[in-house]
């Protein structure tokens, strides 16, 4: 198999990657075409994790208002 030349992932693509991980749905093809550094995923995942918590907390606030 010839290795396809991988593109470096943009910030938006990494964000999409992490968000699709939260849902648990991801196409393998998406992964194969992109080159992602581990630190990118880790940083974005921490931010996404925090935003997830904050989002749930704000929903709770909305419900209890």
């Amino acid at each position: 198999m010839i290795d396809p030349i991988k593109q470096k992932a943009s910030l938006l693509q990494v964000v999409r990657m992490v968000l699709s991980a939260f849902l648990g749905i991801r196409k393998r093809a998406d992964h194969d075409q992109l080159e992602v550094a581990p630190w990118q995923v880790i940083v974005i995942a921490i931010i996404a994790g925090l935003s997830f918590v904050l989002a749930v907390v704000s929903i709770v606030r909305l419900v209890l208002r």
Partner: protein
Amino acid sequence: MEAVNTHADHGHHDRGHDDHDHKPTGLKRWLMSTNHKDIGTMYLWFSFFMFIVGGIMALVIRSELFQPGLQIVKPEFFNSMTTYHGLIMVFGAIMPAFVGFANWLIPMQIGAADMAFPRMNNLSFWLLPPAAFLLIGAQFAPGGGAGVGWTLYAPLSTQAGPAMDLTIFAIHILGMSSIMGSINIITTLLNMRAPGMALMKMPMFCWTWLITAYLLVAVMPVLAGAVTMTLTDRHFGTHFFNAAGGGDPVLYQHIFWFFGHPEVYIIAIPAFGVVSQVIPAFSRKPLFGYASMVYATASIAILSFMVWAHHMYTAGMPVQAQLYFMYATVLIAVPTGVKVFNWVATMWRGSLTFETPMLFAIGFLFLFTLGGFTGLVLSITPVDVQLHDTYYVVAHFHYVMVAGALFSAFAGIYFWLPKWTGRMYDEKLGRIHFWLSLVFFNLTFFVQHFLGLAGMPRRIPDYALQFAEFNAISSVGAFGFGFSQLLFLYIVIKTITSGEKAPDRPWEGADSLEWTHLPSPAPFHSFVEPPVIK
């Protein structure tokens, strides 16, 4: 040594030489082993031994509960049985079983010669017997075993007898063993993959263990901290969990469950990995949505840190926190649902056959999903307030732990036994083992849902008369389940001593390296020169 196999093993043209070279014999082979296969074998036998010990404790519990009233044991001893049954099954049976799988399979599946730190691997295993000795020995401490429940909640745990100290020390040792094992697994997976074995080409089992190992490294120190604080509260005048001294017993619950909820996934995720190997092999199709599975597993691991307090809705929490943990818990069901969907989609229109490993994998899928659903029921705060500490919870987590983790371990053992021993198990007996386990498991635990809904509390040796019928059924089921496992032991021994010779690749759908590149049994040293993966 059997005849030289024609199946080419790259770099292993004279396998006879490899098999005899450097293979220590006698007790030394096991005591000083640095071989991932031998250590894996020891882990698996150790966990089976602990499974029997924990199982006997379960049967003591079920014997006492066969009828209302106190017949067989004293309440203190009963409490000690519920405590050590839980601790031994979680830390002594299920976790070491999957570490055994990891040791056996990870190097073979990624084309490595051994684990990254073979001596540390030896230490990881040999820490377990002393811990087991402490857990079992705690029964004989003055005042008997600590009847505090496997969660070791304060203030019971700060007031319990000397058995509690033995238990705390056992937990420390088990934690050290787990952390060392995890460091080994992470290093092996990140650094020792054969050329061409990209992360996203690893078999799913390796992925699940990579994620599990990170979880273990993250939360075992938290548990160690919790039990150390218990220890200092008991002996060194601190008041972490003592309200009279300004502490808070609920703090213990928070710390424990910050460990405890990821722990559930530490047990479940390697089980997912085993099932993700078995189902594609017997469906003769690649795993549906491999990348999705990897991502879903990672996301389950991350989310597992954010839901811990759903175990303590009744401990006293502001309504904001209750709502937060309820919402977050419901959301964690989404990636788990994706995984179940993917397993079903893997089977969809595959050429299915139903050998024993596949039967256990399907049993896992069906019953684990049921256990997941009762988990969702319990995640709803107002429902949980009714069901907390009832047999509904006991039924729920036994569906996850027994039908989830244990069934998947059985699936894995039947699946890889031909590779490990070079011999086939008795298919007919294997199927009988499955059906007996399935029927008796449900007989034991399905009725416990009804008991819980009717309000029977857990961890009690005596109960009101209206619970008598279902308890009798459950006890009969438990003895049936226990004795069925003796059949399993017989099957494994029969395989090792007189099983038919297994081909190198007995399952035509199995496609990871241990099947395609290595003979059965796998040689003592495999992949001394790494294979090249295209």
